[in-house]
């Protein structure tokens, strides 16, 4: 349910950065452990963007897999869920990737 609010934040931030220049593409980085559904953002994006400088822009979402460093054995491990454990058995993990919720870039209609 919070994806609509998040999408509004995306549109507001990009609109401000675009300062009225039409935007062709918006690229997001969303971690798979961020608690946000990318489908829901994509679903909201066109509607929310309507009437703003980024209306009609294409939305690219780069999904980032979860990864962490194990505090016990030092290995870097994949963490497909928030409660994944290290193969060594430890759950003391320091998250390295997977919780991103970032706007990476925007592509303007005109070339630089």
């Amino acid at each position, binding site marked *: *349910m*919070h994806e609509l609010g998040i999408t*509004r934040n995306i549109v507001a931030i990009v609109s401000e950065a675009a300062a009225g220049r039409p935007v062709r593409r918006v690229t997001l980085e969303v971690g798979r452990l961020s608690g946000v559904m990318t489908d829901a953002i994509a679903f909201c994006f066109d509607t929310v963007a309507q009437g*703003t400088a980024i209306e009609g822009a294409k939305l690219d979402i780069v999904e980032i897999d979860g990864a962490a460093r194990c505090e016990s054995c030092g290995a870097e491990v994949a963490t497909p869920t928030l*409660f994944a454990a290290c193969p060594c058995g430890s759950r003391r993990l320091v998250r390295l990737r997977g919780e991103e919720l970032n706007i*990476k*870039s925007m592509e303007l*209609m005109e070339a630089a």
Partner: protein
Amino acid sequence: MCATCGCGEATGTTVLNLQTGEEAAMHPHDHDHPHEHVHADGTRHSHAHDDGHGEVVALETRILAKNDALAAANRAWFKGREILALNLVSSPGAGKTSLLERTIRDLQHEVRLFVIEGDQATDNDGQRIRAAGADAVQVNTGAGCHLEADMVARGLKALKPGPGAVLMIENVGNLVCPALFDLGERAKVVILSVTEGDDKPLKYPHMFKAAEVMIVNKTDLMAHVDFDMAVAVANARNVNPDIEILQLSARTGEGLDDWYRWLRREAASVRAEAFA
């Protein structure tokens, strides 16, 4: 439409000061409409996509940067006043308000407690808090499913908690959305009642990972439900190995001493850190 959850402005967020009866509507997302002038001539862009490439502008911005900045401002405000601020989260009906009522009554001679009550509608909980003896502000989020940092800032203006106070922010009953929104609190306290089942931490891992403390409430009902405390504790620790776990019944008072001990310790830490 509200930026948070799609509510219409007519059902937008309101802040009710229960001491004065003053109610203010807030439209927390004014910043969302900065470019309406672009379409002042009434024309609409269709932005046909040709094959060209435009300038790529790196933004590298956190989507929740604005909320996080407002939360940081709240946190600094609390720190300067040695206020212990806690963000209470749970499913609806887990007993947040009952625990607060009991805490207010039991600690009335020890600490000034203030409450920001978040609910979609009604000031029922705010009135319960007032009746228990604490000043409260009711934030109604309309269709919104969680509190955001600016709502807390607005609530603080109405509530005016003094130095050394304890501020309890009772979030909207919801184990999903409040996990993402920092309010400036020192800690999130997640409340799980035994009637909900021992697998809640696995079903809503984000919240249990974001919380410093898990309170297992309604322990007086343990005999009547299939709730395995050991399983609940193990599930919570699987998601969050460092989570502190307190077991209590806000109704009978069993286990409340542990909760009060935790509150005193945190309040002491806030005082010690204020000038560190």
